[in-house]
């Protein structure tokens, strides 16, 4: 199955800007460990993954009555804290959950992609 993993908020972690240099490198180490664990795990592949720019750079597009409007900022408050994402191929939810435990303790949303076939 293909899952979109949204890294939504800092959860129990303090904001990135308040991390010391050592703490920042620990976070980076966890991301690298996650990548490595995914590479080693049979049936798992990280198809895409990026860190995302903060809410001030976000544009929201809404179409109402055929008219499209752009607004500054995120679609909804929850998404304000969207910090990054992965698109991961994994055999099942348990394998994905096991691997995600390697990442820093962000709040996450795991959305399965719909299989078109």
């Amino acid at each position, binding site marked *: 199955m293909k899952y979109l993993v949204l890294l939504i908020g800092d959860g129990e972690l303090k904001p990135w800007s308040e991390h010391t240099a050592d703490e920042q490198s620990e976070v980076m180490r966890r991301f690298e460990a996650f990548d490595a664990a995914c590479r080693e795990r049979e*049936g798992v592949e990280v198809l895409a993954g990026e860190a995302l720019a903060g809410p001030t750079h976000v544009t929201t597009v809404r179409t109402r009555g055929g008219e499209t409007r752009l607004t500054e900022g995120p679609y909804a408050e929850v998404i304000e804290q969207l910090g990054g994402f992965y698109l991961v191929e994994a*055999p099942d*939810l348990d394998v994905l959950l*096991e691997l995600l435990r390697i990442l820093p303790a962000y709040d996450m949303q795991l959305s*399965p992609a719909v299989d078109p076939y």
Partner: protein
Amino acid sequence: MTAADDALEQVVREEWGRLVALLLVRFRRLDLVEDALGDAVEAASRTWPVDGAPDNPAAWLMTTARRRVLDRLRTEEVSRRKQALLVTDADLRQEGTRTMADAGSQVEDDVLRLVLMCTHPALAPEAASALSLRLVLGVPTHDIARLFLVPEPTMAARITRAKKRIIGAGIPFAVPDATVLPDRLDTVAQTAYLAFTAGYAPGSGPDLLRAELAGEAVRLVRTVLGLRPDEPVLVALLALVLLQHSRRDARVSEGRLVLLPDQDRSRWHHDEVEEAMSLLAHPVLTRPVTLLTASYALQARIAAEHARALRPEDTRWEQVVALYDALLDLAPSPGARLARAVAVAEAHGPAAGLAALEGVDIPTGHRVAAVRAELLARGGDPVAARAAYDQAIAACRNEVELAHLRERRAALG
């Protein structure tokens, strides 16, 4: 009831979970398996009384259910609809198909996979409880609906939604990694206990039958403990639910609630009490255990204190208070504080009980007011007691308990 009916009832009761597990291993179609098995049971109820029960009833049901699934799969092939399959773990895919004749441990592993799938933490707890009763034990949907106090169509929809979610979210039919398994077994226990407490939850109408349905939750715990015989959380939980459930016949008399001190203790199920006592002596409970296990074990030991007192006045209330103190250290809850206050009143009198009740607040429900009323009455303050009973009566939604409260208030004179 004929011998054939008996044979059918027995095989459904004992083999349902195994049959569901085997059919899932073979077809991975959660949407078809339960209906196919239901059809097979229905066919058996028509043909067995006429032809006699087959020599191997489980194999008969398996064969019939398998044919139903194959029929459906052929129909789908014609309509070219592609359905998502249940995800199974890698070991299982390599092993291929199973039959009822396979080694017991393999089939038991499949039943464990089934239990872990039904109780997955990504499912809402009530949905997981309902699904477990349905798929692991074969409890009819209308009984599950009655247990959880919802209309049958609502429960049927809830179960269907849970099955779709398992497929859609990729919840596997699998035993997870050993580092995660203890947590998952805690969730299994919580799921079973939720079903059990639903049977005793005060409803809005007469609910005598629902205590019997809580027995199905006891059976769920027993079934899973059968798969993992030394799992501390399951040992402690089975002891707890057996002790609570052993009082069911004495709890209600002529449509009225009978409180613990007034219960006819000869009507307790003493065989269940004994089984619980030996479970509490199980060596796994003397080792360090998880918070949840310790909490279940302490609640069970409190229930055991009551069970071992032949008469209410034989209860070792000091011991009960000490056990509640330990429980509150571990898992503070208003319910446990309320129960501790009752025990304190028994050990040291109504004034001490009222002091222990100070600050206990359960916003919905009548129980705190009911206990306060009772202690005020015992302490010789009928005016305050009457006011507290009025408060309890206004908040009480259960007919049986309401009748009890009105009677106590009237007895104040």
